[in-house]
């Protein structure tokens, strides 16, 4: 009886995925009834809302990637360094205070971050680099980075904390400095947990919606200049779902195709990550 109930509950998560795929798929199929999949993959223009419609996912993909990459450049090194500081250097008292405070950062509503990016970080960047566009990928992704930073820091720190004391002692006894112990023993031993935290943070960055909607602009273009505005897949979905487009139109179907692409993207990322982390898992 009990295992049955528990098992059924665990199926809810599977059903959720099935539900998401079904909801996305029906409209996606309708979308590809009108738009060729070749264009979707190859065209470098994404203008479903303009009179001259093009449906190349590339600009959104590039926008998403740019946000994700810059956010990672902020969050992964700083997060990892924070984790190392907390687990290897900080006194217990400091750790107990700092960690939960950092976790508050993870819980701050994303619209708050969005306006923080727009009204604080963007002017800061513009005062340094005046030609920066008011909506720009850089500001949005720095703030996305700040948002996911505690996730990296907190989960990596958990992983490092799980590395047995005896491994550290072994290295200290050989005359290693604290830094050498952290870098050569603790980080490698905690690598699979660290990678897991990276992946979770990355999927959160890819899926982040409001910050990029508010601060990165809504211009779907293929650019690699972070000072220009970009549109991410999530921002496009939000814009269309909250915008004035008529229901049933090709624009409104396009968000499902974009959602599907996003879903496939995060799934792929997760699978790759699982593979990597299984590969690098160090037994101890």
């Amino acid at each position, binding site marked *: 009886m009990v295992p049955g109930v528990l098992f059924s509950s665990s199926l809810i998560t599977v059903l959720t995925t099935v539900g998401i795929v079904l909801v996305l798929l029906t409209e996606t199929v309708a979308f590809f009834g009108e738009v060729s999949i070749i264009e979707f993959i190859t065209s470098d223009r994404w203008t479903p809302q303009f009179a001259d419609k093009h449906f190349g996912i590339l600009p959104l993909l590039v926008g998403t990637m740019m946000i994700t990459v810059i956010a990672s450049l902020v969050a992964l090194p700083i997060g990892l360094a924070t984790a190392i500081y907390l687990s290897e250097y900080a006194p217990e008292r400091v750790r107990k205070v700092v960690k939960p405070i950092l976790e508050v950062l993870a819980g701050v509503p994303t619209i708050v971050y969005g306006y923080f990016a727009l009204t604080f970080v963007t002017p800061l960047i513009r005062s340094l680099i005046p030609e920066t566009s008011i909506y720009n990928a850089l500001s949005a992704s720095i703030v996305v980075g700040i948002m996911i930073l505690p996730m990296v820091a907190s989960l990596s720190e958990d992983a490092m904390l799980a590395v047995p004391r005896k*491994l550290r002692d072994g290295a200290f*006894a050989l005359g290693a400095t604290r830094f050498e112990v952290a870098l050569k023993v603790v980080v490698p031993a905690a690598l699979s947990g660290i990678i897991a935290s990276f992946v979770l943070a990355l999927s959160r960055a890819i899926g982040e919606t409001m910050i990029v909607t508010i601060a990165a602009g809504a211009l779907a273009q293929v650019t690699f200049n972070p000072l220009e505005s970009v549109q991410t897949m999530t921002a496009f979905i939000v814009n269309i779902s909250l915008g004035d487009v008529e229901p049933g139109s090709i624009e409104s179907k396009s968000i499902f195709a974009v959602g599907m692409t996003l879903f496939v993207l995060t799934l792929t990322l997760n699978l790759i990550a699982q593979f990597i982390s299984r590969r690098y898992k160090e037994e101890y």
Partner: protein
Amino acid sequence: MSIIETRNLNLYYGQHHALLDINVDIEENSITAFIGPSGCGKSTFLRTLNRMNDMIPNVKITGTVKVAGEDIYQSGVDVEILRKRVGMVFQQPNPFPKSIYDNITFGPKLHGVTNRHELDEIVEKSLKAAALWDEVKDVLKKPAYGLSGGQQQRLCIARALAVNPQILLMDEPTSALDPISTAKIEELLDELKETYTIVIVTHNMQQAARISDKTAFFLNGELVEYDATPVIFQNPSDKRTEDYITGRFG
């Protein structure tokens, strides 16, 4: 001259007074065994000899510890160099989650050896010294975790030897091992004492009796008696030592 000398050594974990006025002289190229019931301070004392207690918060130490004549608690002492000179092997085998080869070269690389050829030599020499070479010479690139417990412990000994220490501290190095592995390591210790000074903590009195030259008996943070091993086991001068040896407690 003794290679290790402690004078009025006291250690506190916060309020807890864990070592009381310990005075010990340890000779070069000998095996010294520390025995005593659980919690008496054996491990604590051992760790004062290479400052492994530094890492524990709220530890206070008074008195002096001299290694080869130098006071190791003086300011300006290079702890990393000290630990290179005073190697340590722990109760639980603790190989790094790396290959056998990388375990051995970890220490030498820290201390600046980068030449591949030189590293190869160190690996071979240390593994031979730890009586492990024949068993692993063909699987040097395999992870150390594939080894049995006894092999892992010998690997840890080899790893300690690889940085070329003068002294080897061992904290119950065989208590997690089966009898055959234990016998192998005891044999090894006998050989190693030609080259190194060995200090070993053990809860196994038979082991202390079998391998050590001198034995120290600790109780509640006090050094109750310290003498030649046969004296301690056959003719202890302190009643508490006798009670412990004969199994009246502990």
